[in-house]
């Protein structure tokens, strides 16, 4: 056990260091780059007075290290400064949006996971049959498509040009919870499901193919168990283990994917908020959201690594 605990501790520490360096990169890229951040925010026609005021507000007159230190101290105490565009705390701006993004990602995850497992199992059972081939080619094609292409294609198909059955953009009154708009959620959710399902299904298929050829499945069959029982009691539970890792990676991928998908559907989450902030050059919001997305990414990848160790006996014993 000490080996595993040691590994987990090392991995967590490494994640924290990565995040710390990531925060330096974000800060360096947004505030300390050569050039005048205040002028690039306000544009060429800014008056000297307004430039000076903004420099003061952003703390640009202080030494760079002190600026970074103050920013980091704020981040650690939950204070990301004030949004330049909305003139209120960044945490308020993000707080409203985060519920929307989390709900969307949650929906996509709980739909795509069982779907991927079912597809993977079905393909592995009929290995090299027509179903397997079709699934393989279709999932290859779908996995290749950029999210905004899938999103726009769904809008063309179901909202504007072919069928007119679903809303193509999200119109949500501020303050209402995301689940009170089920119709608006359908297309963004499908887009994300299409983005993440193929990969999971592929891993599930590969893992099931291996298991179905294993001795204990052979044994279970020879005992005379029904094929249903062999599959769902013996094979599938073991085949799912490697996909836990993939789920974490997929969720990390979703953290990037929501940037585009939320923008396509005008969905008021942190992804669309990030794009809006980049458009408005609202640096405090850009910094906060970039750090948040990086943190999500680092934590999920860390969970993926730890899950890999925990579910694979060979790696686990090598640590002892």
């Amino acid at each position, binding site marked *: 056990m000490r080996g595993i605990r040691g590994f987990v501790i090392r991995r967590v520490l*490494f994640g924290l260091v*990565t*995040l710390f*360096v*990531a925060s330096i*990169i*974000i800060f360096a*890229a*947004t505030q300390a*780059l050569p*050039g005048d*951040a205040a002028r*690039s925010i306000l544009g060429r026609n800014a008056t000297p007075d307004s430039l000076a005021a903004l420099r003061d507000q952003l703390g640009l007159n202080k030494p760079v290290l002190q600026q970074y230190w103050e920013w980091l101290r704020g981040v650690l105490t939950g204070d990301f400064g004030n949004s330049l565009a909305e003139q209120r705390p960044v945490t308020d701006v993000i707080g409203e949006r985060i519920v929307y993004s989390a709900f969307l990602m949650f929906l996509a995850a709980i739909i795509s996971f069982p779907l991927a497992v079912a597809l993977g199992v079905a393909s592995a059972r009929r290995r090299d049959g027509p179903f397997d081939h079709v699934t393989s*080619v279709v999932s*290859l*094609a779908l*996995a*290749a*498509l*950029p*999210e*905004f*292409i899938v999103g*726009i*294609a769904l*809008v*063309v198909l179901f*909202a*504007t*040009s072919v069928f007119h059955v679903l809303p*193509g953009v999200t119109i949500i009154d501020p303050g209402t919870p995301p689940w009170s708009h089920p119709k608006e959620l359908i297309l963004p959710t499908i887009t994300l499901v299409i983005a993440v399902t193929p990969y999971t299904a592929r891993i599930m298929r590969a893992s099931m193919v291996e298991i179905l050829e294993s001795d204990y499945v052979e044994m279970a069959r020879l005992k005379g168990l029904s094929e249903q029982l062999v599959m769902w009691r013996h094979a599938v539970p073991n085949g799912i283990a490697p996909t836990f890792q993939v789920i974490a990676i997929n969720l990390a*991928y979703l*953290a*990037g*994917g929501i*940037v*585009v998908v939320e*923008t396509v559907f005008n969905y008021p989450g942190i992804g669309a908020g*990030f*794009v809006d*902030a*980049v*458009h408005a*050059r609202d*640096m405090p919001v*850009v910094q906060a959201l*970039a750090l948040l*997305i*990086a943190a999500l*990414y*680092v934590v999920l*990848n860390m969970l993926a690594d730890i899950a890999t160790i925990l579910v694979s006996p060979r790696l686990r014993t090598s640590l002892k």
Partner: protein
Amino acid sequence: MTDQAIALDAPAVRRQRPWVILLRATWGQTRTKVGVVIVLALVAVAGVGPFFAPYAPDAPVQRAHGEYALPFEPPSSAALLGTDNIGRDVLSRFLWGGRSVLALAALSTLLGAVLGIAVGLLAAYSRGLLDEVVMRTMDVVLAFPQLVFALVLVATVGPSLALMVFAVGITTMPRVARVTRGAALEVVERDYVRAAEGIGVPRRRILFGEILPNITSPLVVEVTLRLTFNIAVIAALSFLGFGLQPPAADWGLMVNENRQGLLVGQPWGVVMPVLAIGLLTIGTSLIGDGFSRAAIGIEGGRGRT
């Protein structure tokens, strides 16, 4: 030197270069051929399309009487696919709009591949502290989704083509470096590398002359995969308004500009670029899958003998 040594080992077998074997095995699959046809067709559209475009990419459509067309007009004899958001010819802008996506995606992938291969080889060959430091640095870049990293830079510097290539290339680097290092670690241990070291072959020639040719398969697979993803990122940047700037003709930008057209029954300004970008990524990923299957086949064959 080493070629001779191998030839002495098995004089009867004519050894072929690894990449020739890989290309043969890849081309032998239907999916590769389909992918190549799709990609070549789109490269042709982007490359020679402008010569067939009825209008200049930023010119307004003029009807026979000389009056200018309105925005989002449906297809007509003056504009075969209708007009776009400010009355320009959708077909012409489509024919002009592929070059930027293709060129930027290819350039950024090239940049990322060259940097990533160099870094990965160096890490695998030097081992020790340098390996550790270099690969941990790569991990930090991996902490950002590619698009998010690019957007952070755009927020500061403002949209520019060089920045797109830089941002996408830099975020491609660690992914290629990981694969290069993983594959090279095993090759570094082989006898012919030890032999080359023994007779004093310079380090640069060992890296690029001995190790690189023997990790072609995983690298080609990875770089093709990266190209597919980079097309998506480049197109998405333009779609979000941070890539090519108006009045440029660009497939990603076209989707953004003509979205209102969907609501007024003129979908072509969106549908054409969406089809083109979608088919392009499907094509490159079919080729990548062909490479990947061929590489597995070659590895499997080697394992059995």
